[in-house]
């Protein structure tokens, strides 16, 4: 039997990215069908904490220490270290799984170049067939749902957030450590001079279960106060359209859509959002879509589950009152 690898990506404070716990859970599900063993791989200057976290989800984790990564952009040296492991493996892994966020994409691209392995990106589901992995993806802004495989039967897959719910394994796995190889792959280093946290950085939207999102109709930064209050009352994150971001009402990190992020929350509450295609492509797979809009003919009327026609401030404030009045 072969192996399925999960690359643990760095999260906040030296820990593991939450997306990696979802990817690890998916890998366990696949291994149950393929008969392969799941191996987690964490590369970093001090990989222990993230490796221990990943071991809650998979039976075996290899932590690769590369001290130089402390002051370097992570993805390129991490790709080189993973490529070293591929070179050294008795049999190369059948699948290397990562998250479809910035770090996962950057690593996947470099790893594909170093190993020649094919890469399928932004998986919305992965299943195992007799011919190997079958990877579901969304193309052309969600107009097509495709399933693809690897011609060589093996490759690299990046997985979108919220494709599976992270569930720890019944028993924690083992962690072993490996020093970075000396004679391995080398890619040019990119120095990190500073890591800057910006005041008011909002909760990340990619992993949120509930997103309350505002568009042009919100009217200004003050209007986002109501969006934030509703998000807080629902325990969700704040999202926005490109129009709201371009107007400077809310940072780009919260932008959902074609040149922003693709999200799949359980609930998407859209306030003053018309639902233009550029926004729709980022949120159309949400579990439930609820919209509040003055215009009953706005495009969002075609794909929301529930459309409340009205002023977003009047309806939003009434909703906030009801949510706050709920027990617990």
């Amino acid at each position, binding site marked *: 039997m072969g192996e399925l690898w999960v690359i643990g990506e760095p999260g906040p404070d030296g820990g593991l990215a939450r997306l990696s716990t979802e990817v690890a859970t998916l890998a366990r599900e696949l291994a149950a069908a393929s008969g392969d063993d799941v191996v987690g791989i964490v590369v970093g200057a001090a990989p222990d904490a993230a490796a221990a976290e990943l071991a809650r989800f998979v039976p075996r984790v290899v932590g690769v220490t590369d001290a130089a990564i402390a002051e370097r952009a992570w993805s390129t040296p991490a790709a080189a270290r993973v490529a070293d492991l591929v070179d050294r493996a008795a049999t190369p892994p059948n699948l290397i799984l990562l998250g479809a966020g910035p770090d996962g994409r950057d690593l996947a691209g*470099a790893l594909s170049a170093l190993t020649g392995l094919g890469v399928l*990106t*932004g998986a919305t589901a992965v299943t195992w067939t007799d011919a190997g992995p079958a990877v579901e993806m969304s193309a052309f802004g969600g107009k097509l749902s*495709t399933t693809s495989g690897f011609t060589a039967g093996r490759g690299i897959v990046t997985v979108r957030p919220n494709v599976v719910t992270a569930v720890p394994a019944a028993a924690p796995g083992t962690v072993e450590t490996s020093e970075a190889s000396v004679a391995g792959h080398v890619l040019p280093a990119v120095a*990190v001079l500073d*890591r800057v946290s910006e005041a008011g*950085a909002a909760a990340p939207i990619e992993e949120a279960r509930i997103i309350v999102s505002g568009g042009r109709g919100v009217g200004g930064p003050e209007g986002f106060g109501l969006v934030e209050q509703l998000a807080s009352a629902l325990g969700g994150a704040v999202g926005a359209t490109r129009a709201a971001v371009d107007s400077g009402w809310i940072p780009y990190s919260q932008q959902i859509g074609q*040149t*922003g992020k693709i999200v799949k929350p359980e609930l998407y509450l859209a306030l003053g959002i018309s639902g233009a295609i550029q926004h729709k492509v980022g949120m159309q797979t949400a579990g439930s879509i609820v919209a509040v809009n003055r215009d009953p003919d706005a495009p969002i009327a075609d794909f929301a589950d529930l459309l409340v026609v009205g002023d977003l401030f009047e309806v939003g404030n009434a*909703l906030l009152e009801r949510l706050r009045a709920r027990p617990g």
Partner: protein
Amino acid sequence: MRIVVLVKPVPDPAAGSERLGPDGRLDRAAAPAVVNGNDEYALEAALKLAAAAGEGSDVTLLSMAPGSAPETLRKALAMGATRGVHVTDRALAGSCAVATATVLAAALRTLDYDLVLAGVDTSDGVGGTVPASVAARLALPFLSYAARIEPDEASGTVRVRRISATGYDLLEAPMPALISCTQVLGEPRYPSLKGIMAARSKEIATVSLADLGLDPAAVGGAVPTTSLLTATAPPARAATEVVRGSPAEGATRIVDFLSQRRII
């Protein structure tokens, strides 16, 4: 400052007429092509950097695309790029991401540049791995998710603000380097009438796999690393329930809806 911008013609997302032909490939006749959105941000950043650097600066567009691409590249030339390089070859139909990166890297080996700029991803497949892959193949420093680009020709280095979950990381690397670009770099300009006129006579060099020293049997559609198994329209969402009434009624319906679906 010499800059190459990687540009991909994609079906216009706003037109919404994308579909696959019987061969499982994009039916290009059905969907009008535009310059990929994130590539336009890369191009705008390149034009600003070239203008700031002054004399001797230029911006070259590099595109691997079917024969119809020059029409789309003209729009990017009209924004102010100096010239285009169009890699096209029948053998590239059905290429995978590995082939795309191989070919773009081979084409870049034939060009002179201080920086290569690319959009972080494309709107058709939303893969986002090609920039990193091209950089690794050329052993170029790779700086990604750029919100700001500050080259320093005196020291031969470039600084990039890379968007992070909580703010940004300030990256630095020697040039030449490859940078993936986001919308935060700034709104792309509209081509002026003068720019549109000038673009008509700008050079778009056509390059084949043979010109790049690549074997059509070893790269592209002949040896894809991935294969499309099925393509279907995703299931339509259920019909929309429309509520008209007072704000209080609307709010009450939302709370009931969320309770029914066990969201709250």
